[in-house]
C-alpha cells in the first residue's frame, strides 16, 4: 500500500485502533512514513507516533481467533486491526475478513521488520 508521495504503508481509513478495552476509532488509519509509524483518527488527528526503531509488533494470545496486532509505540500498547472493518463492509463474511486481515498483517509485519521495527512472535 504505497503511494506516489513515498509513504511506505497506509492502511486506508478502516483501521480499528484501541487501547485496553477502549476503542479509540474504527475508522482510523495506520501509516508508515519517513521512518515513523503513525496512528491516526478518522479526521486525521494524530493518536500516537514513533520512529520505527521504537516500534514493536506482537500478537496476542487470541491471535488465532482474532488477528489483532499489538503495536507498541515507545512502550505504549495499541490493539490494531488494519482492515477487518473494510472487508466486512465490502461484503466478506467474518471468516474471510479475518483471513484477509491475516494476509495483510503478514505483509505489514514484514515491512516493519525490514524498516527497522521489532517483531515478536509473528
Amino acid at each position, binding site marked *: 500500500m504505497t503511494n506516489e508521495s513515498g509513504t511506505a504503508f497506509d492502511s486506508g481509513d478502516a483501521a480499528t485502533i484501541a487501547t485496553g*478495552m477502549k*476503542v*479509540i*476509532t*474504527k475508522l482510523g488509519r495506520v*501509516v508508515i*512514513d*519517513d521512518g*515513523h509509524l*503513525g496512528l*491516526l*483518527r*478518522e*479526521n*486525521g*488527528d*494524530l493518536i500516537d*507516533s*514513533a*520512529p520505527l526503531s521504537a516500534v514493536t509488533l506482537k500478537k496476542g494470545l487470541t491471535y488465532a481467533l482474532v488477528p489483532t496486532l499489538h503495536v507498541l509505540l*515507545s512502550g505504549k500498547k495499541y490493539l490494531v486491526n488494519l482492515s477487518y472493518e473494510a472487508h466486512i463492509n465490502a461484503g466478506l463474511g467474518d471468516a474471510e475478513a479475518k483471513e484477509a486481515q491475516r494476509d495483510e498483517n503478514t505483509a505489514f509485519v514484514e515491512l516493519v521488520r525490514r524498516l527497522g521495527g521489532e517483531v515478536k512472535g509473528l
Partner: protein
Amino acid sequence: MNRADSERVAVYCRSEGYEYRSVWENPPLSGVLFLARAPVRLCDVVDAGDEEPPFLVGRARRRGRRDVAVIVVPLRRPVPNMILAGTRGSILPSLGIALREDQRLRLEGDFNSHFSLYCPREYEQDALYVFTPDVMALMIDTVGVRDVEFVDDRLLLYAPVEAIYRVDALGNAKRLVDLLHAKLDRQTRLYSDLERAGAARKDPFRRAQLTTQGAGDFVVGNRGRRIRLRTTALQKIGIGVAALGAVAAGSYWLWMVFSSFIS
C-alpha cells in the same frame, strides 16, 4: 437552531465576506471535544480565513450531547495541551469530558474560584508562562467563553451556542477573538519546548499536525502534546453494568453447556 437560523448565519457571512459551510463532517481539528469515538459534526461554520487574525466558528454536534460553539484561532507556535475550565459553568462536563485531577494546577490569588487550569504533568511551569496573572484577569472579564483550550498550534474557545449564534450575538465571535488573541498570541509566540521535543522534531506526523507556517520547527515534547482524560462516574457505571452483563451472559452459557452434559 433551525433552517431560518442557518440562513441568518449564511447572510451574516456574506455581509462580512466570510465563507459559510452548513455542515462539516469530521473536521480535522484536535482538542478534547474531538477525542470521542462518536464523530463530531460542525454545523453553521463561519470561516473567517481572511481576517486578521483568521478564525473559524462552528456549532459542534456530537450524538447524544448538547451542541457547543467552538471558535478556533491559529497560534504562531505549538504549545502544550492546556485547558482553562470555568469553575462555574464549564461546558466540558456536559460533553462527558473529565480531566485528571493530577494535572490540575493551583493558581495565584482568587483565580481558583473562577477557573481550573489543567496541563500535562512536567509542564506546569510552561502553563504558568502562558497563564500569567494579567491573562487570568482578562479571562475573568471575558463574558461568553466558558472554557479555553490550547492544543498544538491552535486556540479553542468553547461557549454556549446561544452566546455566539443567537440573533444579536453573531458578531461576538470576532469580538472574543480580537479581545483574547492579541494577549494569548503574545504569551505563546516565543514558546519553545526544544529540549523535551527531542526526536519528535523529526517525526513527520507530529509536524503534519501543525498548520501554522513555521510551527513545525517547534513541536512540543510527547508528554506535553496531549492532556489526559479520566473516566467519568457515569462512564464507570456504564462499564460496570456492561461487565456485569457479560459475566451474567457467560455464566448462563456455561450453565447451559454444563447442564447439557448432565442431562
